[in-house]
């Protein structure tokens, strides 16, 4: 089993937290995992990204040039990272901010997830990142939603533990969206 993902967006969209939760979930599921935050000279209001690798074997490189999956939360990230994804890979696009045709991509499977709309239906726009993480988990099959949810108590600061039930619901909503699309 091997999985990797570049997760990217604006600073503040919670992309680093998505990667952290995914990495913790993979560790708790007994997998080998690395998480690498963006490394370079970044500026305020710019993009943030991280790379997560999950495998049964020890992970050699935590940095990937041709990822199996990418999560793009804003247009600059879509333009930069979607074209890097392998042909047989998957791209998860934040459809609330990015439209079809706004980026190039050779991957066959592109999922458009209306993260903000789904989050607002749940009453909290800040859940958009967890909806996307649920979509990534369900669409790629890297971890079950239960396995991702198990990461929340350690990955989240204790101040936010009261938000765990809402985050789990958001993960489930993202997974349902992907599964509904698959069934359709």
């Amino acid at each position, binding site marked *: 089993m091997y999985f990797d993902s570049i997760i990217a967006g604006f600073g503040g969209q919670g992309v680093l937290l998505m990667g*952290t939760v995914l*990495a*913790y979930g993979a*560790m708790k599921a007994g997998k080998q*995992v*690395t*998480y*690498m*935050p963006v*490394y*370079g*000279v970044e500026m305020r209001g710019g993009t943030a990204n991280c790379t997560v690798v999950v495998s049964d*074997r*020890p*992970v*050699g*490189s*935590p*940095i*990937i*040039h*041709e990822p199996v999956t990418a999560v793009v939360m804003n247009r600059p990230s879509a333009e930069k990272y979607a074209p890097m994804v392998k042909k047989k890979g998957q791209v998860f696009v934040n459809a609330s901010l990015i439209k079809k045709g706004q980026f190039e991509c050779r991957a066959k499977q592109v999922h458009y997830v209306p993260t903000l709309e789904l989050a607002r239906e749940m009453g909290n726009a800040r859940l958009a990142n967890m909806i996307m993480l649920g979509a990534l988990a369900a669409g790629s099959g890297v971890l079950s939603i239960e396995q991702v949810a198990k990461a929340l108590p*350690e*990955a989240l600061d204790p101040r936010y533990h009261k938000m765990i039930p809402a985050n789990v619901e958001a993960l489930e909503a993202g997974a349902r969206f992907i599964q509904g699309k698959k069934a359709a």
Partner: protein
Amino acid sequence: MARRVMIKGNEAIAMGAIEAGCRYYFGYPITPQNDIPEYMSAAMPKVGGAFVQAESEVAAINMLLGAAATGARVMTSSSSPGISLKQEGISYLAGSQIPGVIVNMSRSGPGLGGIHPSQGDYFQATRGGGHGDYRTLVLAPSTAQENYDLTMDAFDLADKYRNPVMVLGDALIGQIKEPVELKPYRKKPKPKDWALTGAEGREARLLKSLFLADGELTVHNWMLAKKYKRMQKEVRYEFYRAEDAKMMLVAFGSVGRILKTSVDILRDKGKKVGLLRPITLYPFPDKAIQEAAAKSKLLAVMELNTGQMVEDVKLAAECACPVEFYGRPPGSIPTPDELAKEAMKIWRKGGLK
């Protein structure tokens, strides 16, 4: 079972140090190792220790020298340009036989260079680095787990040989986040009968690196040389899928870990390729290199520089088999696929099948 946590490589260094009894940290900020002082600044007061952000790297290494002279376990960390500034102090530590742990999460040079991962400090680390005829023991971790484990060992080795020990990583090894088992430190450090603890009721002790009397410095240097010879038994390395390897890759640190995946890729294609990863860079694993040279038809050294460790590999191999090199100056981190392709170029050039 020990607690398993998901932490940054830099944090693993800091946590390993505190677990091993380090109670004094002196440093000056520089990317890409700032997670170490950040962690230390919060953690040191909680364990009754002290964190000092010095006014410069030169001040930090001299604070380390002073604190270590009293017998305490102490550490400083920096990155390449900062480590250059510390060389005077490291030379004084070696000359005065005062133990201390110095972490270099190296970046790219020369000069201010950049913040990308690089292995360009290999020569500086393994040849002493400062002035005079001395060596530091150099440990080169390749995972966050090794950062934790080897930092604990660094304190034991520094005390055992009364010598500075360097932990040499790079931006990749410092910034990576991965699971680490927080093994408890169980050793009981021996009392230090040389430490400056106040001479009341005993003979006064003196720690110095200045020897002006006739012949005194010759004796001192020979004594140090003998110590470095004793240090040879601390050599550490790892063989990976090396049993029947026709070509042995040799790499340390970040490249060492990336090449494990390259070896898997090449083995899946039926190519008999293995890896030898030196973990101590000084002492260098000469015997392991000789063993690899005797077993394989070709050694291929890969580094994030234009050729440094390859010189030690050639010296150790003593022409028993050809030694090839692929180097990558700072800029981008090579992927396992790219390095596998480079390995195949060397494989074909060497006429291997």
